[in-house]
């Protein structure tokens, strides 16, 4: 009888609701080589942290394509869109990320995220008002998905009413981030994935053209018309970046909010504290990013030279999977790691990654989730989980509930 490898078990949807015992098992062997052509799986905090800062580790899709059969499809080139900066190395990565940041954060746009606060409160409360007098809600469909989508649309300048259209395109792209789906889907899946990316790019191209002529106060306008010390982006670079921002700008936040509500309903005393003190949401969100990170695995890295991790030599050109959800619960790093404790002083989690690819949208995701959770705590009357565990989405990398049914006595 062949034993199913730990890595395959982690990818198996049957274990999606609670992969943490598997991660704990994984932590016993800091470097796992999963099969002859499989990835090297790294799970301990310090090792992941080191590799995320290691200049011998590449995120470049071209290097990855060479790394093995399960690396990300090389199809990006075939779509006509260049890789977004998440799939590039310095110096190109740095240039594109800097230009993008000049439209998003300090020093050029220090207020872009902060100034969205009133708007976020308004959107959140409209969605909660929309629950009406229902006694049961699906938090994902009625709240955790529409909220970040609305925010990222507003920020980029994408019409909110186009959401049903681009959602059909986003879904296969996101599915493509899951190694299991890619392996199972084969050439047909790859084709679908390519088409979706091309179409999403074409959709955004129309908007970018329009913003070039008539700039507004949104990120698409800023990206299309950037003229900083790094020069400007080509149209194709603007499109690749916009696709990235649109998708990364909401797919992960949905899970963070949903995981957050699920965790809080499992810890009613903390939920009660949040109801009394909305400021606690800041600490709750940080602890959530450690305890239930929305991105569980970073599977898109390869080493450009032989490297040694804990005495194991990983040959040049291997696939590396960094299991950040395991690292976040590494007892070598965090005391009592399986306890959800927003009062933790020591909370340098890997939830947003680290190093040059650390989450670009982190300030936005933090603020969105803080507002979402504190307002839900304030307004929902006596919320209870209907299913525990809830049904989970297929994806093992971007892990989160597909639905989260919550019974309520009403909204305040």
């Amino acid at each position, binding site marked *: 009888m062949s034993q199913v490898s730990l890595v395959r078990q982690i990818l198996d949807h049957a274990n999606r609701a609670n992969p943490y015992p598997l991660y704990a098992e994984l932590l016993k062997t800091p470097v796992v080589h999963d099969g002859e052509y499989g990835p090297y799986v790294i799970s301990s905090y310090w090792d992941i942290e080191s590799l995320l800062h290691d200049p011998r580790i590449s995120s470049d899709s071209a290097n990855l394509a060479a790394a093995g059969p399960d690396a990300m499809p090389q199809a990006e080139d075939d779509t006509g869109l260049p890789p977004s900066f998440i799939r590039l190395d310095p110096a190109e990565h740095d240039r594109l990320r800097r230009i993008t940041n000049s439209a998003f954060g300090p020093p050029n746009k220090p207020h872009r995220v902060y100034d969205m606060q009133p708007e976020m409160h308004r959107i959140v409360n409209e969605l909660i008002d929309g629950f009406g007098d229902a006694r049961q809600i699906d938090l994902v469909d009625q709240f955790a998905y529409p909220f970040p989508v609305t925010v990222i649309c507003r920020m980029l300048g994408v019409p909110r009413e186009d959401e049903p259209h681009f959602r059909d395109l986003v879904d296969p792209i996101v599915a493509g981030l899951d190694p299991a789906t890619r392996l199972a889907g084969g050439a047909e899946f790859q084709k679908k994935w390519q088409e979706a990316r091309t179409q999403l790019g074409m959709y955004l191209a129309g908007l970018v053209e329009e913003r070039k002529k008539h700039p507004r106060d949104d990120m698409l306008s800023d990206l299309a018309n950037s003229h900083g010390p790094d020069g400007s982006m080509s149209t194709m670079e603007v499109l690749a970046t916009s696709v990235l921002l649109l998708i990364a700008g909401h797919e992960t936040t949905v899970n963070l909010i949903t995981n957050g509500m699920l965790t809080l309903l499992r810890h009613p005393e903390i939920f009660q504290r949040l109801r009394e003190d909305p400021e606690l949401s800041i600490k709750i969100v940080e602890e959530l990013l450690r305890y239930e990170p929305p991105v569980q695995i970073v599977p898109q890295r390869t080493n450009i030279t032989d490297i040694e991790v804990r005495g194991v030599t990983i040959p040049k050109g291997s696939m590396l999977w960094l299991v950040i959800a395991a690292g976040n619960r590494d007892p070598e790093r965090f005391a009592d790691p399986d306890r959800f404790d927003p009062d933790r002083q020591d909370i340098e989690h890997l939830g947003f990654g680290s*190093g040059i690819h650390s989450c670009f949208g982190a300030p936005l995701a933090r603020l969105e989730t803080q507002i979402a959770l504190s307002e839900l705590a304030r307004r929902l009357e006596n919320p209870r989980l209907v299913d525990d565990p809830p049904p989970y989405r297929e994806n093992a990398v971007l892990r989160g509930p597909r639905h989260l049914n919550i019974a309520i006595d009403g909204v305040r």
Partner: protein
Amino acid sequence: MAADYVDWLRREGRIAIVGASLAGLRAAETLRAEGFAGSLTMIGDEPYEPYDRPPLSKAVLLGKASPDHTDLPQRRDIDAKWRLGVAATGLDITAKRVRLSDGDEVEYDRLLIATGVRARPWPNEAEAGLDGVFVLRTRDDAVGLCRRLGAGARRVFVVGAGFAGSEVASACREHGMEVTVAERAGGPLVGALGGVIGAVAMDLQLENGVDLRTHVTVTALEGDSGGKVRAVHLSDESVVETDVVVVSLGSIRNTDWLAGSGLGAGPRGIATDAGCRAFDFRGIVTDDVFAAGDVARSPHPLFGYQFLSLEHWGNAVAQGETAAHNMICPATDRRPHMWMPAFWSSQFGVNIKSVGVPPMADEIMITQGSLTERRFAGVYGYKGRIVAAVTFNNAKWLEYYQRQIEQGAPFPVGYPTMDRRPEGRQPMPADFPDPSLPTHGPTVTLSGYSPADRRMVFTPAHH
């Protein structure tokens, strides 16, 4: 017996902290966080509660923050008796008393010295007293300098192109003022980072319109009949007219008040063991006097057990915390302070960070990015291992190099890295000035030698 003493000390002992700045404050917070319930006295010669200094030469000078708004955030209530605006003037380690400038005395059971450093003044007292001559270390210094710059100064002369001087020059240029910088060495920052990096810093200053004069010293500051500074005389016999002079010649450790106390304290600071306990002048460790922050110097195993004095923000925090912990725990629970030296600067739009001890090195290798783009990571090597690293606008990689230093990784770096350009393939001389010549001081001082060495070696002379 000893355990009883620690119990008693934690319950009702008296702890005095001399120096109410970063290291002192973090130590006080740590004492309380770890359960110290006795009386705590904070002594500071400035009239202010602890404030943060890095912004004074950056955000404050740029007008982006008020000098009154750099108070350090307090992590918890420390329930201390504050003796602010009163300097410590003497120490009796036998009677366990600190003498104060107002004639008062503070008794202690355990003492932490965190008196830091002060700006080295212009050596000619009469010239230093001219109106318009400034140093920049304290909040009051920053207020005075800001006021003068805001009152229509057109030309500023900065003496010394170390980090502080370069930051001042950067802020003044941003305000559109004419700036002249004089540096004894061959470029800015060479004392701390060597000539290769100094050349990059030099280009940066020239490109930003600084009138940079290297290989010169200032011979005199000249005042007008009203006692206001009007010109600076240089060793190359040139004269530069100016409205303001900022003297940025490094710092002096505040140990004068310890003269005669019997502690091993001098111009290089207070020698301590790795657990922050001060040595007396015979080299015997005390058990009730501790030192932390800029004023302390302690042996570091990663750097040959040389005694390091570190004028680094992060070191002040970490050393304050370690000292506080060790002050109130049983001997077996003490922990060593083994902080990795690290500092940052911000000037002319560039973020500069460094880890390790660059002046220990003799070679440098650019491992990522490019010097000409001023966006790079470089590592410093000494005797076949990496001892330091520096980044310009590339700080997110620094952590990797820190691990390399911790692991004693070999130098030169043989493997490929992301973004390594042709100039990075070879190590080159790091080009530090001869340490026997006075130059603008590095913020790291190497002093002392390995206890394992059988020879007397003069360090840091590695030429």
